């Protein structure tokens, strides 16, 4: 007889104390989302070019200085959050939705699985950035194309996860009992199989969001993202790279912002994983 379950009550510490990772990540992320949403009220003007002010150091007037076109770096950093968050969340939601449906049928019906698995293997073989770059090059650089291009390479990972959960649940006695009891197929799928996928999917959604934000910024950096007028963090770094020795803040302000957002999302992911499934997960 092993030690009693660690979920038994009795721990008197507060939620943040017991779940520091999740609390920290959620707090930072919440702050950033708030800042992005309320940008127009406090951030300043991200677009106006004013060559007189170019490459000014951070000061009371320009909190993070100006870039080579005299634009307010702080404002551009705050507005840049909008694109990143929009892309990250949209990619995560669409990838999860599509991947879950495919994974569900792939896991439950062997015939479907045979075809789908091959296709997913093929998709996973193409590096995500390359596929995204190619798609943007072919189809143009709007935010929606970007979301589509980043989402597609993420779908196979969701399919793989859902498929493996479905495969294991399919063998569970309670599913067999439902079959013996005459439960119809769609009820088995929705009531017995699908709920088991929810917890791992939530965790994976956050990781996908983080990956999407990184990929979007890489694309902007490489010149394959949205137009350079809109403030995106990757784009800002690309534009300012030659000014690195003279004006490092133009590169590091968006860089640090990127790092903080992705870190916050990853912390939320780790925290959720520890909360929902205390045993260490596989994808890291």
């Amino acid at each position, binding site marked *: 007889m092993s*030690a009693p379950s*660690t979920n038994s009550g*009795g721990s008197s510490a507060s939620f943040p104390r017991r779940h520091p990772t999740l609390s920290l990540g959620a707090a930072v992320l919440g702050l950033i989302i708030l800042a992005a949403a309320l940008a127009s009220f406090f951030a300043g003007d991200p677009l106006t070019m004013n060559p007189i002010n170019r490459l000014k150091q951070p000061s009371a007037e320009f909190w993070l200085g100006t870039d080579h076109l005299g634009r307010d770096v702080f404002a551009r950093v705050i507005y840049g959050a909008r694109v990143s968050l929009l892309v990250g969340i949209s990619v995560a939601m669409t990838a999860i939705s599509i991947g879950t449906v495919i994974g569900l049928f792939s896991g439950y019906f062997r015939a479907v699985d045979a075809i789908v698995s091959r296709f997913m293997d093929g998709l996973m073989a193409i590096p995500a950035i390359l596929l995204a770059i190619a798609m943007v090059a072919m189809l143009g650089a709007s935010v929606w194309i970007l979301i589509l291009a980043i989402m597609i390479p993420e779908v196979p990972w969701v399919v793989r996860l859902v498929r493996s959960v479905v495969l294991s649940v399919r063998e569970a006695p*309670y599913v067999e*009992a439902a079959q*013996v009891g005459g439960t119809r197929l769609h*009820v088995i799928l929705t*009531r*017995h199989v699908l709920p088991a996928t929810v917890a791992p999917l939530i965790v994976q959604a956050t990781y996908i969001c983080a990956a999407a934000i990184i990929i979007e910024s890489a694309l902007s950096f490489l010149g394959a993202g949205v137009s350079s007028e809109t403030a995106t963090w990757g784009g800002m770094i690309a534009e300012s790279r030659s000014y690195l020795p003279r004006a490092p803040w133009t590169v590091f302000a968006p860089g640090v912002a990127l790092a903080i957002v992705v870190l916050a999302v990853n912390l939320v992911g780790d925290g959720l994983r520890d909360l929902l499934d205390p045993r260490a997960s596989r994808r890291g």
Partner: protein
Amino acid sequence: MSEPVLSVRNLTTSFRADAFSPWKPVVRNLSFDIAAGETLAIVGESGSGKSVTAMSAMRLLPERTSRIEGTIRLDGRELTSLPEAEMRALRGNGMAMIFQEPMTSLNPMMTIGGQVAEVLRIHQGLSAADARSETIGLFEKVRLPNPKDRFDLHPHKLSGGQRQRVMIAMALAARPRLLIADEPTTALDVTIQGQILDLIKDLQAETGMSVLFITHDMGVVSEISDRTLVMFRGDKIEEGTTADIFAGGRHTYTRALLSAVPKLGSMAGRATPATFGLIDMETGKVGPEESVPAARSDKPVLSVRNLCTRFTVRGGLFARVRGAVHAVEGVSFDLFPGETLSLVGESGCGKSSTGRTILRLYRPDAGEVVIDGTSMQGLSGEGLRKARRSIQMIFQDPYASLNPRVSVGTSISEPFIENGLGTVEEARAKAEDLMEKVGLSRNMMGRLPHEFSGGQRQRICIARALILDPKVIIADESVSALDVSVKAQVCNLMMDLQRHLGLSFLFISHDMAVVERVSHRVAVMLMGEVVEIGPRDAVFANPVHPYTRKLLAAVPVPDPARRSLRRTQEIDELKSPFRPRGFEPPRRDYREVAPGHLVQA
């Protein structure tokens, strides 16, 4: 009186969830001694703290979340305050431990010889060559066949019993003074279990070591121990010589526990099953032993003829069919209304596959199943659903048999609603009735499965099976995973339901003692075939087929007086019924040695 090998005083072991949670004691104030050459058995149900006691002695509990108070002395040496380095020198050396699951207790990536030799190299500093020859000697001692060839094998190539022998060799390598055995035979088939128990006893006689034997099985206790200690929820209930304990002991709990243990041979002379006369744990009142009436023998409610289920095995370059596992081969029997027919056998004999094939969870390759007059042949979809209303199933694992996210009321009602038998309100009303019938309260309908114990969950599964008013229930090892007293209670419930509703049970089990208690008739299976079938009394009193006799002889009987009877020393282990392609199963004939009692010729 010489110093006891192990001396435990006021042991209290506590756990906590994390650094912020309070300590919860799991073992409270436990004291006992083990003398040299003696075997002490600690017996209890789950949650009694018996395994935790063993792990405390070895100090194998996780550091940050566990705490040991009290004293534990090995040969006079205090263990609780020993620095880790010295404790490590003791483990596997002065005291050794073997565990329950031989499958997972050996490192799959290391050779078995390497793992045993490791003990010798660490504790005795032997060279690789010396350790190797000594290990081979140990393999011989534990009666592992072909020891020299087996040295370089990996664990997955061995059977469960062979792996347990390797574990024993590993534990004995450095000649420990004390061997702690934590349920070492629970996961093994009963014939293998007997061999392992004999092995431990012989080795103990040879080496003079003491044994601390942890188990929940009273039969095993009476086989192996000199003295017995009974635990319940972390407390010591009583301790004494095994003979005394089995004579009834002093404490009510001990007597309640013993009343729940089926004793092979106790039903001799009685034609029909009877409930356990359970003693209430608190009041000490003895429950009645109620007989179940005989079955009506006019028309069978379930008829199985020449059932065959084979699983093809593929391999090779183009996944050609190499052969098939003949899980069920030519099985035939009838089940009558109000009757319990048990399918018994060891793992791999096909009893579970038979049950599943009857319900069409597997597709049969040949044969016929007729349920309440309807043939199951070729049924699918709506027809299959309708046929399944007459025959339902309860499974082995009470924890995996209910959807953890759905209330038990919904789980019970589900078959009723899905079969279109009525409205949701009608379903709920019927479900509430059934909850009461299985001994639970109707207020519990809204709760989730994790709020119930294993025994309660099994009752819920029975309620779910009953909601369609079936004629037959297939119980696939449904009591095997339950504690002793709970097992008896659930068996009693099934027998009560049989008396009141006229239900028939197809009782699938490997536990001969329980089968003796609950069955009208018995069918013994081996390698997918029925080798003997007949009235329970006839088969148990007069087993004819050699396998049946071997099976019955291997069952440990909870009667210390019968201890000295030895079993045969055969080491063979069952293989799976894999047949190469093109194999034609031989025709089997059965001879009738007594009315209704057939044996494979």
